[in-house]
């Protein structure tokens, strides 16, 4: 360590130094070191085109990693292939190599690449073009997305060998206009789908249907392309690929890429009030660690779980380090920033000009920002797969890297930080999709009918197609004639259907500080809580106050302000059971669980003003916005009258609330879904059951199979909840288990545990 500048020469040196820092080390609960791993290689396949091996040779690549060679071989055998390897293991070559090999020998062949975001697509084109240029061959690679100018579009349709796009564009622009893409579809040999793990949940369920449509169009033009997929580490890559593509896959998971030494440091903020179980804020601790890294000259990425946290951390960090770094060296990165700004930040990170970045999971995907040296996770990212994915942002093939996992006070974080073996010993989660969600399926059947009429005997998805077609014909969306179903509506169906969420349109945020400037956007789902009137909206560390929210026009007008608080909004939720599909009673009869359809109405009620840094409540105000209705699937369990009878209503309330607080964190862990996708609501006397009940529901119209899965895993879920509460070191409830005592009362912990042991214990 240079004593004058405080900069570390190497990561090893910095880590040595850190181990001597008692103030930090006191809070480190576990230090995991992954040793460096040497490369395992295989020679270029003998049939590899000379031009290709020469071009690779010129870049210093003289052999393949074992997984690249295995993928090449599997593609050669004509199989659909899914490759699973960690970040920075050269996985793009797993699909680029066979595609380029084919294009070199057959210039009429075509390939379609799908990436979940535009940014990824653009990186890919640059890389492919570089290779083609090095080979001095005429292989044209183009991105085709919303930014592609109309004049270029026609050229791409006819002459692009490799078309790189995203599922949304495929859904709304390419498939509905497939007749303009005759050349592509007639000659389509490969469909490359990278970041396969990103296609899960609602988005994945939509994309699975877009792929059904894609395959249908290919069949119409007489092509049967091979699918080459790549995924970050998940537990079920082959199963996921097979569900998404509905075809059988070869799995390549033998990673031959080298990796430097990797340190994973579990960090638990110190307790400041033992009795109340209150720890120092994870935001402040993350900021401290990030500042330490940045000041030592280490390029660092900080991941935070919400947009608001990103902005808060960014503000703190910029302030802390403003003397050492210019204002543009530490940046934020999240959804809602406009594409141009994001490209600028990515470029700055690659060049090293930007020294630190605070991001949501938006940077979890393979966007090219180079490899950083250090990563700070503010809170457990919610899944094991995400954690590895985010920490993979720090890590080079040679030299060490470090990731800090800074636990927040929520139960799941506390459980993991104290049981590192649970985290390290567990396989990453499974990616799940539910492509036959009736609403999603129907939407895509409409789109598919628009693209090509359906014929008797056709299949599409797992439901009985003819019933769905007849339903749509009754709704006068389709017209049946001679055993064929034709689209017969004036509308263009893909326009009304967004693959990303239930929300159809985003809210645009307009800054009126100096003229009118579009600042960013928020999806409809986030709007009621993020940009209600008087909310403080943070963007690139600058505070804006929402002056007017034009709900019908989907616009929020904001003005720059400088205040010492941020806002936090609450939602009031009402539930109505529409239909019960499944029911089961626990052996002792103490708990009845049900699965079925729910109607949820949510209305934002009030917002609180929270002082920056101390996070104390300094005021509140009402929110006037219309309520939103959600028709979805849910699972709920209720306690029998006997179980309820021995407790006062107050005690029951505390017990249920405490239990719900634990379950809300555990459920996403079991489902590998975003915590936003599933909701938990406790009710002391539910309308439907008249009993104390805890509800779970999918936060997506029609449901996406999450609560159904929880219904099946009910016993396991409750057992885990019991273990978590029991294992918590606090006296009588804390934010890390059932919640703070202000919320669940002095006996909250005992009550929740008692309720579980009395009932679920009997069940077990």
């Amino acid at each position, binding site marked *: 360590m240079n004593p004058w500048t405080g900069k570390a020469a190497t990561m090893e040196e910095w880590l040595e130094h850190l181990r001597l820092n008692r103030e930090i080390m006191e809070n480190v609960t576990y230090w995991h070191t992954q040793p460096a791993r040497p490369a395992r290689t295989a020679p270029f396949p003998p049939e590899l085109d000379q031009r290709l091996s020469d071009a690779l040779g010129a870049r210093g690549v003289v052999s393949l990693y074992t997984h690249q060679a295995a993928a090449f071989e599997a593609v050669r055998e004509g199989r659909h292939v899914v490759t699973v390897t960690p970040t920075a293991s050269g996985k793009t070559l797993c699909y680029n190599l066979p595609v380029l090999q084919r294009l070199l020998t057959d210039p009429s062949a075509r390939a379609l690449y799908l990436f979940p975001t535009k940014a990824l697509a653009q990186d890919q084109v640059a890389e492919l073009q570089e290779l083609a240029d090095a080979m001095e061959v005429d292989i044209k690679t183009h991105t085709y997305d919303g930014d592609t100018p109309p004049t270029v579009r026609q050229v791409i349709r006819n002459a692009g060998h490799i078309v790189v796009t995203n599922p949304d564009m495929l859904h709304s622009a390419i498939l*509905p206009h497939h007749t303009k893409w005759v050349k592509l579809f007639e000659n389509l040999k490969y469909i490359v789908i990278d970041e396969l793990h990103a296609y899960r949940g609602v988005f994945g369920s939509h994309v699975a249907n877009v792929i059904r449509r894609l395959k249908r169009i290919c069949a119409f033009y007489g092509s049967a392309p091979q699918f080459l997929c790549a995924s970050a580490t998940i537990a079920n890559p082959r199963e996921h690929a097979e569900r998404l593509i509905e075809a059988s896959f070869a799995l390549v998971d033998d990673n031959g890429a080298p990796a430097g030494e990797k340190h994973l440091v579990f960090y638990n903020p110190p307790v400041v009030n033992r009795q109340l179980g209150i720890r120092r804020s994870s935001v402040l601790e993350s900021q401290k660690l990030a500042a330490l890294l940045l000041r030592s000259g280490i390029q660092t990425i900080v991941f935070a779980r919400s947009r608001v946290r990103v902005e808060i951390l960014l503000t703190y960090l910029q302030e802390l380090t403003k003397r050492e770094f210019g204002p543009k060296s530490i940046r934020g990165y999240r959804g809602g920033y406009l594409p141009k700004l994001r490209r600028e930040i990515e470029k700055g990170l690659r060049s090293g000009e930007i020294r630190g970045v605070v991001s949501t999971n938006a940077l979890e995907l393979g966007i090219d920002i180079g490899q950083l040296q250090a990563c700070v996770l503010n809170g457990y990212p919610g899944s094991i797969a995400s954690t590895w994915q985010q920490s993979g942002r720090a890590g080079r093939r040679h030299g060490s890297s470090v990731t800090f996992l800074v636990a927040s006070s929520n139960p799941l974080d506390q459980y993991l930080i104290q049981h590192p073996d649970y985290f390290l010993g567990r396989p990453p989660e499974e990616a799940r999709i539910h492509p036959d969600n009736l609403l999603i399926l129907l939407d895509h059947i409409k789109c598919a009918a628009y693209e090509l009429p359906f014929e008797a005997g056709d299949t599409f998805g797992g439901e009985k197609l003819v019933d769905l077609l007849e339903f749509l014909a009754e709704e006068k969306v389709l*017209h049946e*004639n001679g055993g*064929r179903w034709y*689209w*017969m509506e004036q509308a*263009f*169906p893909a326009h009304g259907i967004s693959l990303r969420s239930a929300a159809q349109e985003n809210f645009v945020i307009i800054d009126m500080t100096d003229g009118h400037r579009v600042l960013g956007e928020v999806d409809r789902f986030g709007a009621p809580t993020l940009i209600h009137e008087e909310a403080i909206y943070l963007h690139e560390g600058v505070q804006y106050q929402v002056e007017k929210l034009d709900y019908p026009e989907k616009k929020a007008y904001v003005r720059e302000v400088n205040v010492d608080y941020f806002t936090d909004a609450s939602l009031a939720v009402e539930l109505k059971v529409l239909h019960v599909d499944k029911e089961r009673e626990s052996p002792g009869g103490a708990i009845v669980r049900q699965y079925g359809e729910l*109607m949820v109405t949510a209305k934002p009620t009030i917002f609180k003003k929270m002082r920056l840094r101390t996070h104390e409540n300094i005021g509140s105000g009402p929110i006037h916005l219309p309520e939103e209705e959600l*028709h979805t699937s849910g699972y709920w369990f209720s306690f029998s009258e006997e179980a309820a009878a021995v407790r006062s209503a107050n005690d029951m309330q505390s017990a249920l609330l405490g239990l719900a607080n634990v379950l809300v964190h555990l459920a996403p862990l079991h489902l590998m879904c975003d915590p936003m996708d599933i909701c938990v609501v406790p009710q002391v006397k539910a309308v439907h059951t008249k009993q104390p009940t805890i509800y779970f529901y999918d936060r997506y119209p029609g449901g996406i199979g999450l609560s159904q899965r929880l219904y099946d895993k009910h016993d396991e879920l409750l057992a885990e909840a019991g273990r978590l509460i029991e294992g918590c070191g606090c006296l009588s409830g804390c934010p890390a288990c059932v919640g703070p005592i202000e919320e669940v009362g002095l006996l909250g912990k005992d009550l929740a545990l008692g309720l579980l042991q009395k009932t679920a214990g009997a069940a077990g």
Partner: protein
Amino acid sequence: MSSLRDRLDRLRAHARPPEPALGGDADATAESAEDTGHSAVGGEASRKAVSAGDSGAGPAKPSGLHPALTALGVEEIAGESGSFLRRRAVYPLEHRHGHYVLSELTRCAGLLRPIAVRQNRVRIEADPAVAPADIEAHRLLFLDTETTGLGVGTGNLPFMIGFGYVDAAAGTFTVEQLLIRHPGEERAMLAYLLGRFAGITHLVTYNGRSFDWPVLTSRFVLNGWRPSGVEPGHLDFLHPSRALWKNTLPSCRLSRIEEDRLGIFRGEDVPGSLAPELYMRYLSDGDASHLRGVYVHNERDILTLASLTVHFGGVLEGRLGAEWALPSEPEELFRTAAWLDEHGGSIHAERLFAALCAETTPGGAWLLPAAARFKRLGRYDEAAELWERAASLAESRLLPSAEAHIELSMHYEHRRREPAVALDYAQRALGLLQRRTSLRQSDRTRAELDAVRHRMARLRRKVEATERLG
């Protein structure tokens, strides 16, 4: 799990409420559509009923066509790939449609060459041999389609394809309208249409370049044809119409242009936007009388394409201000003159510009571009006259532009060599810009202000030098 049917029904029950506003509006339009549909068809329908009865009594009643269709003269065409319906109406070339007579097509078609060259540039450059820019009336197809939806996506189906063509030898203009009774008949209709393309060099349309033709191309591909690379050329009147009338007509919809510029009054007409709705109603109840209005509307559209051919031919030929009256509004006069300039008609444009200069009204937005034209041609005095008018107009404006004053200042400085006058204009320009800045600040006005100050300093030196000499 409940049955699929139950779930679908519940979905329907819950899918309805979230879109009350939209649904309500749609219903309202549907109802008014029904009204117009009935009133448009009403009287006719009874007349048709009689004639249908007549033909029903006749000996050789062809097939089971709906009486509303037989009354319109619709017949069934059966071919290799199935059948569809065709209606044919033959007009003598002496037929008058609004201001113009169809026989003028023969002469006017050739005059449209400059439009054709402009609109088919890419194609002509690619292969001049297959894409002649010469235009002959009998090699034009006047085309208009009615489709089930908007946009050019693959789900938009043209259910009616109408086209007209000239037979010079027979002295007729024929309109054919092809209709499919259900989507299964499309292939046969398209095959017939393809046959009609033989010998055709250009499609005459209104927005056909970006709508009718892309839709048809898509349908050909869907039915198994592949683009040959050779397409008919286009004569699309949407763009020329916008060039002339964008600022003087409330819209450039065909019906607006007909009434205000072509002397065509449709009377009761089913608006084209209702055609999809009416066709879908026909599909669901089989009552072909819904389609009567669509037939009439489509046929008139095709005749209007012929009228537009004559009109634009006449404009390019220089008839405005000769046989035809000049546009009454200066704005339109200017736009027409500028359009003629761009289409090789500068000689005829001259007459229009002369009329424009003779205008006594205070003038408008056209003054500066018109002056710029004279400046470009080196006719500075005429330009100066228009700048003078623009300048006095600017001075009466709340948020003035100083462009005319600056042009005049340059004019007097460099061409008339009268620095004192030039300085006076520059001085006034500065005043205007300052007034502008006091109301609205912008980087542009600030830059302009600097430039004017710079100009004034130079002119002052020149004036002083002249005074010293004098």
